[in-house]
C-alpha cells in the first residue's frame, strides 16, 4: 500500500467513526425520548394537565406545577432581560478597554460557571432570609435570574458584535448620538440574536431543580399562584417528588410530567432555533 492509499484509507475510516459518534449522540437521545414517552405518554390527557396534585396517582395532575413553571419563567424573563441586555450593551458598546471592563468580563465568565446549587445557597441567604421574601415565586425568579444572567449577557454581546461596524458608522455619520445609534440600529438588528439567547437561557432555567429545592420551593400547592409573593411549585420539583413515592404509578406520572417539561424545553429551543435561522436568512450583511 502506498502512503497516499494509506492516507485515504485513514480518511475514510475516520469518516465512518465520525458518523458513528454522531449517531451515538443521536441514538442516546432517541433511546431517552422513546423510553420516557413509552412510560408516560398514555398518562397525558386534559385531566392530567388541569388536575391539582393528589395522593392517587391516577387523579394527580400538574396544573399547579406547570402554572408555577410559567409564572417563574415570565418573572425570570422580566427580571433578567433588562439587566442582562443592559449589561451586554454596556460591555460591548460603552466600556473602554480598562481594568474594570476586563474585570467585569472575567467575572461574568466566572459566574457562568458557578454551579447552580451555589446560586441556590445565594438565593436562600439573600432573597429568602435577608429580604424576607420567603419561598415565594419572586425569590425563586430572582435566584434563577442571577443564574441565567451571565448567559444572557454573553449572548447579547455576541449578537451585538455580529452587527457590522458599517451600520454604526452609517448612523454616526448622519449625526446620531451613541444611544440613538444603539436604539435605532444596533438593537433592532441584533434583536433576534438577543432573543435567542434569552430563550435558551430560560430553557436552562426551566429544568433547574437543585437551586429551587435549596431555597425551599414547596411540594403540595393546590392552587395556582396569583401574585409573585405566593408560594409555588414547579415541574422539576413535582417530578422529583413523584419519583420518590413508593407507588409504581407515580413513576408513570413522573414520566408524563417529564414529557411536558421536555415539551416546554423543546418548544423554547425550537423558537430559539427558528429565530436564529430567520435572522440569518433575513440579514445578510
Amino acid at each position, binding site marked *: 500500500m502506498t502512503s497516499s492509499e494509506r492516507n485515504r484509507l485513514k*480518511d475514510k475510516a475516520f469518516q465512518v467513526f465520525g458518523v458513528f459518534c454522531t449517531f451515538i*449522540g*443521536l441514538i442516546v437521545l432517541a433511546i431517552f425520548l422513546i423510553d420516557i414517552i413509552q412510560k408516560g405518554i398514555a398518562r397525558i390527557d386534559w385531566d392530567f394537565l388541569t388536575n391539582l396534585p393528589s395522593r392517587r396517582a391516577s387523579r394527580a395532575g400538574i396544573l399547579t406545577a406547570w402554572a408555577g413553571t410559567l409564572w417563574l419563567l415570565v418573572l425570570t424573563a422580566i427580571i433578567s432581560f433588562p439587566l442582562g441586555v443592559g449589561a451586554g450593551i454596556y460591555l460591548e458598546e460603552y466600556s473602554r478597554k480598562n481594568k474594570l471592563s476586563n474585570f467585569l468580563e472575567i467575572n461574568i465568565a466566572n459566574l457562568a460557571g458557578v454551579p447552580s446549587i451555589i446560586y441556590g445557597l445565594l438565593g436562600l441567604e439573600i432573597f429568602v432570609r435577608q429580604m424576607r421574601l420567603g419561598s415565594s415565586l419572586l425569590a425563586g425568579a430572582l435566584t434563577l435570574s442571577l443564574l441565567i444572567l451571565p448567559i444572557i449577557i454573553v449572548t447579547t454581546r455576541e449578537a451585538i458584535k455580529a452587527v457590522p461596524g458599517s451600520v454604526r458608522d452609517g448612523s454616526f455619520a448622519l449625526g446620531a448620538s451613541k444611544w440613538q445609534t444603539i436604539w435605532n440600529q444596533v438593537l433592532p438588528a441584533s434583536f433576534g440574536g438577543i432573543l435567542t439567547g434569552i430563550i435558551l437561557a430560560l430553557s436552562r432555567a426551566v429544568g433547574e431543580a437543585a437551586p429551587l429545592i435549596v431555597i425551599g420551593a414547596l411540594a403540595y400547592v393546590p392552587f395556582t399562584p396569583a401574585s409573585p409573593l405566593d408560594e409555588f411549585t414547579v415541574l422539576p420539583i413535582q417530578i422529583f417528588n413523584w419519583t420518590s413515592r413508593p407507588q409504581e404509578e407515580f413513576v408513570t406520572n413522573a414520566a408524563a410530567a417529564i414529557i411536558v417539561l421536555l415539551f416546554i424545553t423543546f418548544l423554547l429551543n425550537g423558537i430559539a432555533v427558528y429565530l436564529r435561522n430567520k435572522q440569518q436568512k433575513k440579514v445578510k450583511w
Partner: protein
Amino acid sequence: MRVSEKIIEGLLWLSAVITILVTIGIIWVLLSESVAFFSEVSIVDFLTEKEWTPLFADKKFGIMPLVAGTLLTTFIAIAVALPIGLTIAVYLNVYAHATLKQVVKPMLEVLATIPTVVYGFFALTVVTPFLQTIIPSLAGFNALSAGIVMGIMIIPMISSLSEDAISAVPRSLREAAYGMGSTRLQTAFGVLVPAASSGIVVSVILAISRAVGETMIVAIAAGQQPRLTLNPLVPIETITTYIVQVSLGDVPHGSLEYRTIFAAGITLFIFTFALNNISFWIKKKYQEKYD
C-alpha cells in the same frame, strides 16, 4: 440630550456592575458561614483528613473523599465526552454536508437541555443495570454510570463549542492544507485542530467545570457515600451531592452540620472559579491570533 445620554449610560453601567455584586454576594454567603465553620474545624484537618462524616456522631471533616468523588465522576465524564465530542466536531465541520451539520448540531444540543433529574434516573434505572450485565461486580450506585451519563450530557458542549472554534479557523489555512494535497483527516488534525486548539481547550475546560458542578445526576446515581477511592465501580459522593443531600434533609440552620455545606460549597466554588479563569485567559490570549 447630553444628560439623558449620560443617564442611560449610567443605568447600563449599573446593570453591568450588578454582576460584580452577585459575585460578592456568593463569596460573602459562602465565606460568612465557612469562616464560622473553620473556627471550629482546623483547615489542616479539612484538607488532610481522609474521612468525611460530619453528620454522624463520630465527626470527621476531611473534604478529600468528596473531592475524590467529584474528580472521579468528572474524569469519567470527560473521558466519554472528549473523544466523542471532538470527533463529532471534526466530522461535522470537515466531512459532513452543510445541511446535515445544520440539522445535527441543534439536535445534539438538545442533550444539554434535558433536565438533569431525568438524566439521573436514566443512569440509575437504565445504564447501571445494563452495565451490571457486563461488569457483575458493579454496585447499584457507582461513579461509572453517573460519569458516563454526565459525559453524554456534556458532549454537545464540547462538540458545539469545538466546532465553532474549528469554523473560526481562517479559510485560508484550510485551503493551504488542501492545496498541498492533504486529505480531510490530515487537514483536520494536522492544521485545523491545532489552530483551533485554544477554542477546543476552552470548550473542554467549560465542560469540566460543568461536570464538576453537576448535581442531580450524581446525587441520584453515584451514591451518597463519601469514600477516598478512585474505583469507579463503588458508590461515592461528590461535593454537590453532599450539598443537595443536606439541603433536602433537615439540618438546623446555624449548626456546625449546616455550615459544612458552605465549606463544601466554597471548595466547589474555588474549583470552578479556577477552571473558568484558566479557560478565560486561554481564550483571551489566543483570541486575536488571526486578526
